[in-house]
């Protein structure tokens, strides 16, 4: 029986006075990898932020593991088992790389150990003592992803994680996501890098102007290439 880990209905979100999301509906089943596609500014990041509670006002319904989260403050949403890796990385300058890694509190058992993380990202081990923002752009990106793997969150929201990474690392990330999926994690990916996301995702949503305009499954990918071409220029 598949369980709906995340179910969003009629989500509206605002930044100050600007209305960004106009009724997003989206469902993610447990153990799935779902990818949000769309042009720049389509509202994918906003969707992610709205789930966690980082936008201004929001309306509609967000159910995480059956529990309504639309009114919850971010820290309570996180405690429902959500791990968020933001687009702008959010590495803390006043903390060392290792402190950055250790920062998010463990919210559930079953997260990765520090040893496993360093094995996956050897750069981080090497730079563990440096202040977080002194890491190179790519290192910061790795750190941002690594950070939430420790917490035991079961639903991972990953925003543009392959951005600015060398091809070798991107390949590693792809492997990582496969591993996570195998371990039963649920992942929502926002990606520009279609080649990276395409083979990983079970299902795809396409966004445009703050709305979901299309959804399809992995096996329908080939049928939809023409549409994607039109929407994303892939």
């Amino acid at each position, binding site marked *: 029986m598949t369980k709906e880990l995340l179910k969003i209905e009629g989500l509206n979100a605002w930044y100050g006075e600007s209305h960004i999301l106009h009724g997003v509906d989206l469902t993610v089943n447990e153990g799935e990898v779902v990818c949000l596609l769309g042009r720049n500014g389509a509202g994918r990041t906003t969707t992610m932020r709205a789930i*966690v*509670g*980082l936008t201004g006002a929001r309306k509609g319904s967000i159910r995480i593991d059956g529990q309504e989260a639309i009114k919850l*403050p*971010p*820290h309570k*949403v*996180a*405690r429902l088992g959500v791990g*968020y890796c*933001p687009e702008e990385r*959010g590495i*803390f*300058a*006043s*903390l060392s790389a290792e*402190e*950055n890694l*250790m*920062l*998010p*509190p463990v*919210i559930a058992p079953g997260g990765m150990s520090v040893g496993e993380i360093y094995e996956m990202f050897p750069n981080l081990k090497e730079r563990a003592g440096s202040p977080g923002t002194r890491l190179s752009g790519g290192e910061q990106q790795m750190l941002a992803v690594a950070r*939430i793997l420790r*917490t035991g969150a079961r639903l991972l929201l990953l925003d543009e994680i392959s951005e600015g990474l060398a091809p070798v690392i991107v390949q590693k990330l792809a492997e990582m996501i496969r591993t996570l999926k195998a371990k039963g994690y649920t992942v929502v990916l926002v990606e520009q890098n279609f080649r990276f996301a395409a083979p990983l995702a079970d299902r795809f949503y396409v966004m445009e102007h703050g709305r979901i305009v299309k959804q399809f499954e992995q096996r329908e990918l080939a049928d939809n290439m023409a549409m994607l071409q039109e929407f994303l220029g892939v």
Partner: protein
Amino acid sequence: MEIFGIPLQAFLGQLVLGLVNGAFYAMLSLGLAVIFGLLDIVNFAHGALYMVGAFAAWIMLDKFGINFWFALVLAPLLVGVLGVVIERTFLKRLYGLDPLYGLLLTFGLSLILEGIFRDQYGVSGQSYPVPELLEGATNLGFMILPNYRAFVVLASLVVCLGTWFLIERTRLGAYLRAGTENAKLVQAFGVNVPLMVMLTYGAGAALAAMAGVLAAPIIQVTPLMGSNLIIVVFAVVVIGGMGSILGSVVTGLVLGLIEGMTRVFYPEASSVVVFVVMVIVLIIRPAGLFGKEA
């Protein structure tokens, strides 16, 4: 033996007194640094909270007969709660805005607090006696040091070290430091940031109040005692490097000493010396002695 024409004894005596003042600077600038570091707010109300702390101790003694030792715990608690209220009602609305607004708001608050106490208690101030246990003085050989002043130095060092440890060496401290940079994100990781920020401001206020209680037996408790001191403490914080906990403590103590020395050699300059030091430090190290280079 003499140093620059000053007898060694007098010189040492002055050093010790400088240290006592330094202890106050350290405690006050510590609170400022904590609040600035974590909330990005230059707490202009710090001097007023210090004053309220001293008044709280005096009122406790005068009206309720609560002695110094209880006041030393109760007054900071009370002012801490006041701090929490201030954070909840006012500062909360300013997060994410230019830090200058925090400065202006707390400036306004300090005027209000000062005005209220002025209206209630006048300006000539109240006298708070030295606690019995610490009455008298110890002969250090080179000077007679009132026991109470020795206690102040000790108490302040303990408080400062404790705070430093808490912030730089514990997990809570890491949340606090990260929270200053991007509170939203830390919250999105599952940390109850609003609570943390509220308590931090409360703690900063409590630190100021504790300094106030400690000062009460030494100086006259007046509504203006805070505003006289606060500007100097600001300078201390800038010299130490804003937001640097260790910096503010060390600088506080050292500036106390420097000021003490100036009082011996060129007393007229003793209130400007802190600012002169500040200018020199800033020319050499724009981020302050312990500040991180931007």
